[in-house]
């Protein structure tokens, strides 16, 4: 456990030792018990492990935990604010954007990155933005609608 790191996850600071080879996703799941971030592959393809690091969507299976030292990390567990769902969470529920729920956290984290940079995406832009995330249940149809729902919600005054 040769490397001491300090990472702020969902607003809470965590310090501890990790092996150099520990992937960020394993750090989140095994060290911090944040199992909402999932592992679906070993080739950085499926996107189930997507989180935000310093405000950007990244695949936490392709970042070493030591690289997150000093970073701000947001996982699916940190999306809701004081118990009220994030619009993207609401969108997935309202538009039936999930079935088994396994890819959902990664999908939502990618979608929020998209909406941050492109608040009003077209259907094509949404589909293109999801190219790093696999879903095997929904055929993506309702995921697209969920993201459209969130985009609309985030743009309308609360």
């Amino acid at each position: 456990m040769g490397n001491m790191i300090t990472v702020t996850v969902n607003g809470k600071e965590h310090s501890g030792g990790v092996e150099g080879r520990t992937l960020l996703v394993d750090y989140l799941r095994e060290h911090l018990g944040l199992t909402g971030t999932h592992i679906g592959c070993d080739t950085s393809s499926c996107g189930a492990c997507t989180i935000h690091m310093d405000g950007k969507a990244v695949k936490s299976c392709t970042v070493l935990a030591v690289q997150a030292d000093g970073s701000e990390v947001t996982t699916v567990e940190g999306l809701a604010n004081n118990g009220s769902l994030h619009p993207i969470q609401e969108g997935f529920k309202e538009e039936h954007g999930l079935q088994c729920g396994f890819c959902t956290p990664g999908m939502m984290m990618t979608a929020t990155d998209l909406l941050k940079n492109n608040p009003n995406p077209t259907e094509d832009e949404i589909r293109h933005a999801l190219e790093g995330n696999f879903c095997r249940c929904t055929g993506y149809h309702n995921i697209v609608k969920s993201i459209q729902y969130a985009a609309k919600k985030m743009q309308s005054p609360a």
Partner: protein
Amino acid sequence: MTNYIGKSVKRVEDKRFITGQGKYTDDIKLNGMMYGYFVRSPYAHAIVKSINIDRASKMPGVNKILVGADIPEAIAGVPCGWQVDFKNGDTMKEPPHPLLVRKKVRHVGDGVAFVVAETRAQAKDAADEVDVDYEILDAVTCPKKATEEGAAQVHEDAPGNLCFDWELGNPKDEVAAAMAAAAHVTELDFSNQRVVPNAIEPRSAIGHYDTAYDKYTLYTSTQNPHLIRLLMCAFVLGIPEHKVRVIGPDVGGGFGSKIFHYAEEALVTWASKELGCPIKWTADRSESFLTDAHGRDHVSNAKMGFDSEGKIVALQAYTYANLGAYLSTFAPAVPTYLHGTLMQGLYTTPKINVDVKAAFTHTCAVDAYRGAGRPEATYLLERLIDLAALEMDMDPAELRFKNFIPAFDGVEQEGYTTQVALQYDSGNYDPVLKRALEMVGYEEFRKEQAAQSNGKLLGIGFSTYIEACGIAPSAVVGALGARAGLFEVAQVRVQPTGKVSVFTGAHSHGQGHETTFAQIVADRMGIGIDDVEIIHGDSDSVAFGMGTYGSRSLAVGGSAIVNSIDKVLEKGAKIAAHLLEASADDLEYAEGKWTVKGTDKSVSFGDVSLTAYVPHNYPEGLEPGLDFNAFYDPANFTYPFGAHVAIVEVDKETGEVKLKRFIAVDDVGNVINPMIVDGQIHGGLAQGIGQAMHEGTVYDETGQLINGSYMDYCMPRADDLPSFEIDRTVTPCPHNPLGVKGAGEAGCIGSTPAVVNAVIDALWKGGFKVKDVPMPMTPERVWTAMNN
């Protein structure tokens, strides 16, 4: 009264999933838990000459390394749950499928050793240091080649690699005679390629032996915990069932691949006692590619004969089905009773014969994958009829209308008896295709197609399908070789406060049972949906169950719930009658209360519930409590059907196919939650389209799976698919109380041939009269078809 049924109630399970609180097997951590990692064969066929674990055993954190010889003889291999016999009556060949190989590996990924260590990383590090000396042997991967003389043999006791041969329908000579008299015969040689289910959650299992209670708990990513318990206890480990609890917690998709009992489950369960600690194993994705049962993999030749009017007069199908290296739980049923029996399709074909040879090969086991046999049957029929339309220069929709079985509701009119052993429950086939044509704007499309001139070829493809689901009547499947009953179980437990806990043997891994079932319960009992809780996935909580597959949850599991509710209400009425001082026959139940007919005297469900548990003023001789079990065994399969239409554009320069539109009109009987049903259809479509356009294993001649990763095996992504245009008709199932048929597999069954037919249509209209482009229709294959 329906407050909920038929409405798109938002899913109650979503909250935990969208907040990251779902609990999948790999999320579970037990005290003192160790981690297992498998050493797997890199070869498809080899003799294990020696295994040296000396170096590996000394690696940090290693607790134990198990090899085949460590497993007691008393522990049997993984069993098969379905027996199909040879045509001559001989029993199918059923070679052993050990938990860990002792002498011979038979596919890449066969388990050779199991390393248990304190961390997953340590287990993997040590697994890398296990030295196995192999003598490599020749391998065979194609089911047809496997049965040829001189092919490498998978099992000593299955000569010619034949597991069984099988036949169904009219005698071959009768079919041949009808075919000979046909005005036109369309013949096609084709493959229904092997695909990998690829649930995004990799399989995972935790075995935990508790010395205090002398009891095992297995957490596993399964579609049917009770069946796993039954198979593992009775056939593998020989442990009594009451000493084993199997929990299938949240499961990240199954699509068939998590129905089966796998060696890893039995191994972690047994080893947890041997090693004295809980053991978790979770597959890497590349491991999943090698060990999760694959789907499809048929090599077929089929002929369809037509008279001069375009009426189908005969069908002859020959199929070689690949079973892989070992028999998976339901493998023998897939190419036979889930495939051959569907050869009638929606058509009045009078003479049908289907002939199947099932072969072992040096590949991963093949079993049910979304649709299981029915997609293969539909593909065969729908490719033939669309091709026939092109060959005979007839309209493919018109040709289908001409051959559809006339409407029957299964009540006034009898069910339709096929040439291939089934009786369809109810059907009305014209409307689905008519509606699909309307949605397409068919005439307009044909004009647009004829006018296309931009280097692209437009094509349209049809598929009208029927499937048999709601699996299944126990007596029927028993006669066909199933070694289990396929009923379902439900328990409705009314709490003293009138809240309702429902225990179901069906298992949700994305289908939304916690919502759909609650809708049924709430409506039938006239209570709020928030007052209902659905519990599933735990063999200690739920009396029994057969799990979820074959689009059976609602038709079978839902019906069991209805029957339990009926029992609850029947007893409730007795209590209510006592409280109301009336006869039970004079009561009617609605909106959560019993009312004496024609009066305003009533008692609420809540009061009756409380009385059942506080029986101070209570009917004499009646047991207290309000808690009923029901076992529901369906009278027949259910038969959803539909019409799917694909519109594609083929790039003449590159062969790239763009799926421009996809229209699906399905009839799944009555619908409880339209939102969820639509979602099931969407998902099925994506998988069916995936098979047509993107997916398929590539084995090399030595049996290596050379596209065993997401970098190489192509699954559809969001930008590969259009938004789907879907609609439905409703033809209720006449034989179950909900009138439902099942929607889980429909999308996957109908879509594949529609897409392939669309590409073939595009090519014909562009002047390339090819009969087939092998799936997946990669750009190179389509380009080759145009440039040969």
